[in-house]
């Protein structure tokens, strides 16, 4: 089984630990990732805030490359990338005009039928039974709060993934691997996302709320499937502790981290040792 792979800027940059984790984990599952040839940035919030056309064109270029190179599906582990790709795709699907215009803009013909997948969907396609079959270490020590953030499920009509108010797909996978996910209330609350640079106060406040709620519901770690969520909850956690005078002390794992651990990989090969908050 192999998948097309669109890492996006984050996984090649400051969230390369996520990239490492995804690679190691899927490798262990016998999945081959075929990275998109000369992909470009999806534009993220900046594009859709400042230039509507650009917000369609940048992801459209990537979709067109995937079509050109014969990749029927594309794993985009970053939900921002994945949402931008899907948004472009549904805009393209909606009108012939748009397809023509943007084929012209991105200088490649585009149909818009690539199947864009997030990390959870890839794990689902690999199959719970397969993963379980390869697992060697139960995750029974882990009581994760599974955190979906905004863009894994929103906007629902574009993402068409899980229940946008009460998602449970990560819990399903982790529970199968022996973890005991907690029920909590901030699964889909926003952590402040792209405001990390521009407005740190918002990020600290929102992320603090999320960490606190996870703790109140007896989680001993948080699981994410998003590089931005990880930055805000992990890298910013020391700042949050300082600002709000508390000790959350909650390690934040990528979903692929925990699946990788269950598969018997060590923390180092998954890049967990490079996180800011480490398990004591």
């Amino acid at each position: 089984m192999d998948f097309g792979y669109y890492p996006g800027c984050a996984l090649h940059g400051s969230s390369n630990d996520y990239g490492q984790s995804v690679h190691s984990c899927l490798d262990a599952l016998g999945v081959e990732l075929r990275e998109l040839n000369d992909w470009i940035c999806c534009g993220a919030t900046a594009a859709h805030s400042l230039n509507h056309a650009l917000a369609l064109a940048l992801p459209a270029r990537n979709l067109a490359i995937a079509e050109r190179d014969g990749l029927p599906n594309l794993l985009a582990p970053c939900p921002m990338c994945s949402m931008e790709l899907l948004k472009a795709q549904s805009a393209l699907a909606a009108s012939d005009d748009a397809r023509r215009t943007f084929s012209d803009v991105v200088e490649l013909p585009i149909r818009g039928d690539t199947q864009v997948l997030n990390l959870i969907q890839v794990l689902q396609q690999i199959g719970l039974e397969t993963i379980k079959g390869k697992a060697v270490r139960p995750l029974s020590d882990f009581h994760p709060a599974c955190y979906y953030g905004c863009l894994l499920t929103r906007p629902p009509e574009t993402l068409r993934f899980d229940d946008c108010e009460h998602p449970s797909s990560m819990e399903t996978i982790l529970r199968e691997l022996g973890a005991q996910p907690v029920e909590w209330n901030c699964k889909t609350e926003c952590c402040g996302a792209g405001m990390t640079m521009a407005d740190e106060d918002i990020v600290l406040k929102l992320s603090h709320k999320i960490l606190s709620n996870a703790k109140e519901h007896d989680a001993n770690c948080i699981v994410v499937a998003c590089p931005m969520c990880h930055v805000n909850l992990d890298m910013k956690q020391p700042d949050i502790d300082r600002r709000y005078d508390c000790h959350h002390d909650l390690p934040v794992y990528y979903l692929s981290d925990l699946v990788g651990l269950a598969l018997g990989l060590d923390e180092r090969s998954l890049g967990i040792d490079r996180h800011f908050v480490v398990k004591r």
Partner: protein
Amino acid sequence: MARIGVFICWCGENIARNVDVEQAATQVAELPGVACALAYKYMCSDPGQSLIRQKIASEHLTGIVVASCSPHMHLRTFRKAAAAEGLNPYLVEMANIREHCSWVHHDRAEATAKAVELIRMAVAKVRCDHALQPIAIPVTRRALVIGGGVAGIQAALDIADAGYQVVVVEREPSIGGKMAGLSETFPTLDCSQCILTPRMVDVGQHPNITLHTYSEVESVEGYLGNFKVTIRKKARYVDVAKCTGCGQCWNACPSKKTPSAFDYNMGTRTAIYVPFPQAVPARPVIDRNACLHFLKGKCGVCAKKCQAGAINYEDQDTSVVEEVGAVVVATGFQLYQIGKERNGDGTVGYGEYGYGEYPDVIDSLQFERLVSASGPTGGEIRRPSDGQVPKTVVFISCVGSRDNAKGLSYCSKICCMYTAKHTMLYKHKVHDGTAHVFYMDIRAGGKNYDEFVRRAIEQDGAQYHRGRVSKITQENGRLIVRGVDTLVGEPLTVEADLVVLASAMRPADGVEPLAQKLNVGYDENGFLSESHPKLRPVETNAAGVFVCGACQGPKDIPESVAQATAAAGKVLVMFGHEKLAREPEIAKVNETNCAACFTCVRACPYTAIEKAEIRDRKGNLVKRTARVNQGLCMGCGTCVALCPSKSVDIEGFTEQQVYAMLESLE
């Protein structure tokens, strides 16, 4: 020689604004056969109609065209006016220059040109009209009422009291409907059961009423005045004739844990049960899915306890056929199923409110049972999760209604009132409690209605916040309600012990297949369609079938009852005649030309065409032909399109008329 009068209506400014009515009159006056053409401000008004009548007389008109609104609006009106002056009403045609012209085309020249053409078409049509006589059909003076809620009860009693036989069909084991489960009613706060149960008893005991409970309409045949209705009586496993309603059986039944549908799952019941103590008939049924006898093949306690020997485990569904002349549909409503109904793209509505996840988030009918003296808590307000008395309750309006994205686009109309009532009932029982209401608008039109809502706010201190709630979560046994008060422009979070969602009213399950059996139309939401929103509010387009209550649209008890009486009135008007007059715009076979291929017989949706034989005086077969049963034909014209030799035609829409209209086009 045709002498057609054309009457062009201004409809105030509605038509005159975009159509130059005077110019149109001048132009159409030139058309062949037009004797006079004139415009007037309001043609449907009394003076307008008088004008038409006067011209019919003075100009010796042989047909008239009224160019005004949709024929669905006023064709009847103008036909009546013509008839009053002695002109056959079927010599009246309309040109729809309002809905199809002035309201949709804003270029005056274009609209005027089109109006003239529409009138020309109508003139062409009316020239081919001929006088028709209504068709007389016999009436069975016996009515069927479908649904035994307050509307059905009212309609049945009114008809029965007038001296006619009524058959009532109710799907549940008892009549009473939703009202039987309500606590107190707005705006008087009188007890729902106290008003309703005596009426239920009246139905049960009325000599003119035949009651089929736990029964459903299976099929409907026939037509206006002559329906044959097959009713399926579901197996009760209790012989109603033998049973005395003593209660020994349900008191002894060991299976006690079935959620009570009557209590909206807020309480439990036994496997053999009456839905509520005041049930009519006060006879139990056995729920096969809960009964140990059926599930495990043992038990039989009820049969042992029953001294009347009324328990019959071998009972089967049976069918009865009732012949009736009129049908009243009063199938009522159900609540929008929060979190269970899917919108267009398949997402489930209102996950954000946690209904079904958090036990203390309930809907309004569940709250009714919670405050009802006959409810599972005996009228004490105790929340489902832990039985505590909730000190803060949040009521959320417009759940499922006025919500195109997740629910139904319409306003459910009664929720504002019942929510105000709920806050009052709550405050009357929990004096130190706080009731918050999140609302978008307060719609309290009705006698003493707005006063009632003000009382909830001013006297009982309900906290009303204008804004919708975005999310409900649960922390430490309390519900965190994240809303907004748009009037102060601030987000607002309330910690509540209980949340009540004012869920929308929508038609009861199964109304659509029923409507199809009855040939009654319904709208996209499943509400049954009345013939005319203003002038024929309880009639339907299926002759002899009437509607009342919430199956026709959201409404409260007084309105339902009023409409039920209106429907009963219409039935009685029908029953006041020995024979009924039917619109003659139906199919007619040219029997001489008919080649008797009988394609029409195969196609007719009403089996209204039969194979007939024409014989000479000696009884020899001359020819065979198709023939229309005037009582059954509804005038759809399917036969006309299928007949290769056009040996069948439909009055009012004849081949000649349609071609004349086409020919008249420039």
